């Protein structure tokens, strides 16, 4: 794909939505600062805020980057360029994922840094933090897949609602699983079998959603 237009498409998407990225990063950092202040209230407030920022991003991005391309009729403009539908899907997935991953990673790293340097959260909670933070990433990949394949705002919103409802249940289940919470309060992070298996399943789900998107997109005969 030496001559492919994909890099320009990705750059274009990032340029168009840089404000959204900036706002999310800003909100997330603010949340972490609040968490730092110490005390249970700050902790709860900050961490809620933190997750809300990530989840909102997970919902907004697919809609603004994928669904709107069809709604605002700029898709014809993009498809008039030397690009196939597969290349378009690739560019969209990469740019939207990037736009989510950058703030997500940044905030995750900040959160992890907090646990290692600060005194509010013990290091033993690190695997849990990672596991929980991966949930919005999975949700995001589901919403993104639905947005790309269904081309419909309605379906994307439905996916958003489903995912948002499941986060709470997932978190509850995780916090109530003894094999996961047993090492919470330790001073060191322990990556045991259970944790690793769960992480593998989480990454696997994301990979599955992406492959499914490519597969379903390639079967479309009327792209626009």
């Amino acid at each position, binding site marked *: 794909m030496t001559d492919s237009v994909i890099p320009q498409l990705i750059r274009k998407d990032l340029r168009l939505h840089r404000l959204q990225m900036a706002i999310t990063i800003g909100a997330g950092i603010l949340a972490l600062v609040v968490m730092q202040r110490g005390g249970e209230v700050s902790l709860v407030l900050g961490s809620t805020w933190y997750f809300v920022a990530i989840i909102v991003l997970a919902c907004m991005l697919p809609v603004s980057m994928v669904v709107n391309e069809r709604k605002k009729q*700029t898709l014809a*403009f993009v498809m*008039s360029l030397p*690009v*196939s539908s597969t290349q378009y899907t690739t560019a969209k997935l990469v740019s939207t994922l990037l736009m989510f991953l950058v703030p997500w990673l940044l905030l995750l790293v900040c959160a992890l840094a907090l646990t290692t340097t600060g005194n509010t959260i013990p290091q033993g909670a690190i695997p849990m933090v990672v596991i929980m933070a991966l949930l919005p990433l999975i949700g995001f990949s589901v919403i993104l897949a639905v947005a790309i394949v269904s081309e419909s705002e309605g379906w994307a919103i439905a996916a958003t609602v489903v995912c948002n409802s499941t986060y709470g249940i997932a978190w509850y289940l995780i916090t109530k699983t003894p094999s996961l919470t047993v090492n919470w309060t330790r001073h060191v992070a322990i990556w045991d079998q259970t944790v690793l298996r769960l992480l593998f399943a989480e990454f696997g789900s994301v990979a599955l959603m992406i492959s499914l998107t490519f597969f379903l997109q390639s079967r479309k*005969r*009327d*792209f*626009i």
Partner: protein
Amino acid sequence: MNDLAIELTGICKRYRYFSLDKISLQLPQGEIMGLIGANGAGKSTTIRILMGLIHQDAGEARVLGHPMPAEQVAAKRDIGFASEDMRLYDSMTLGWHMSFIQSIYPNWDDSYAQVLLKRFGLRADQKIKSLSHGQRVKSTLLLVLARKPKLLVLDEPTTGLDPVARHEILRELAHVMQDDGRSILFSSHNTQDVEQISDRITFIDRGRIIDSMDKEMYLDRWRRLRLEVPPGLHLPALPGVIDVRQQGRLAVATANAFVPDLANAYETRGARVQCIENMTLEEIFVANVEHSREEVEA
């Protein structure tokens, strides 16, 4: 060297309420083809198929030698496509779009782009959302023209434009034809524009191609004969005539395969030919569509 810029053979596409039925057309390199049809006739679908945006159910599409949609990436490097329902990014400026296109196509001619900006009365620093409809259309066309593509595919490029803007666009399209290696396919409701600048005309109605041929030959075949008929005589539709309307002693015969003998043929039957009129493309369009629909229903 007469390569075909566009070659569609037996293209079929089925939708729930509409289908394209064995569409075949050819556009030789260096020519302009005007595609005319009523709303919903299938112009946009045909154009999307030849752009590789829609996959046909049957038939072959070759554009600039590339089979579509298989080689759409290679083909689209040399095609400039603009359709009436296409939009640019509202929050960005025209200048940003120009840089964007320039980063993709090596053929971008910036000095020509500047000339077009002036000619169309546009400014590069304007955001798309602040432009009027006519300015948006001209912006889209500027982006497509400044690349000097080998083939221009335009779906209703002048629809909704005021007469001045339409004239500006037509002049630019006519200038493209100075290069005999470049070709244009455009669909339009404006039969006057099509009549003026097309080398070839294709009529499409209800998913079928009714006619596709050389414009001058086509205009030559259509005539309207005004006849004075002696009382009591009922005029038949002679070969080459598709419609005869008679009211009392005056009749009008519409011919789609006119030969000078036709006038004589009517005179020998007792009618007096008052005059033989040329028909505008619009009149031909309406007569043709009505005739072909009658034929299909029969």
